[in-house]
């Protein structure tokens, strides 16, 4: 889960996984993915019990919305 100067830089990375062509995400989409509602409550007194458990569903909804509802992004079996 890294930031690169461009897709070309990522592909030249010595550890680039050839099966990860599907693994690119634009920075605005990434900021949205890691800025969903639960993320805004990380300092709340009830984050662990109330907000964190909602995160998986929230992430699924977001990756679906940006067209990445594939096992690689969903964390489901291929």
């Amino acid at each position, binding site marked *: *889960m*890294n930031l690169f*100067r461009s897709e070309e830089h990522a592909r*030249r990375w010595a*550890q680039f996984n050839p099966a990860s062509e599907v*693994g690119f995400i634009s920075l605005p989409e990434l900021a949205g993915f*890691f800025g969903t509602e639960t993320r805004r409550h990380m300092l709340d007194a009830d*984050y662990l019990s109330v907000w964190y458990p909602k995160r998986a569903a929230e992430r699924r909804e977001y990756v679906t919305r940006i067209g990445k509802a594939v096992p690689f992004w969903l964390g489901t079996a291929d």
Partner: protein
Amino acid sequence: MADSQTQRMDRMFQRIMRGLVDTGRPPHYAELARALGMGVEDGRALLHAVMSAYPIGWLHPETDYIASFPPLNGLPTQYRISVRGEQKWFAQCGFEATSATWLFPGEAVRIDAPCLDCGDPVTVEMRDGRLVWVDPPGVVGHLNHGFGPSRGRPPFL
């Protein structure tokens, strides 16, 4: 009335996250125990319960030291986080780095990292979740192994 285990875990979670934000390093369980008014060993057990409930973070292997508590990291990474011109935080990974903005409401939060291909800088500045500066403009995120345990590599790498 005594706190329930859920309440105790919430309180410890908040202490850890707030401690990271305030100091740039995760607290030790003995410090957490004192702050929460419990015995040291009870604090250690509660820390393990919190980490089990928050498995995207982890303790350093074979220790009770908090290594990672996303979005921030106790162990230094290449993702340096600066606020008010002060760099004292690290993000767990490049993706979590974009979430650090939510820990510093109203502040400009800057991410600096070397590109893993060339070593040249990648800089992103955010405020309240908005991207306010990106250099170079083509910065992208990349997930190398996919989410989920079945792929055999931690996705944060």
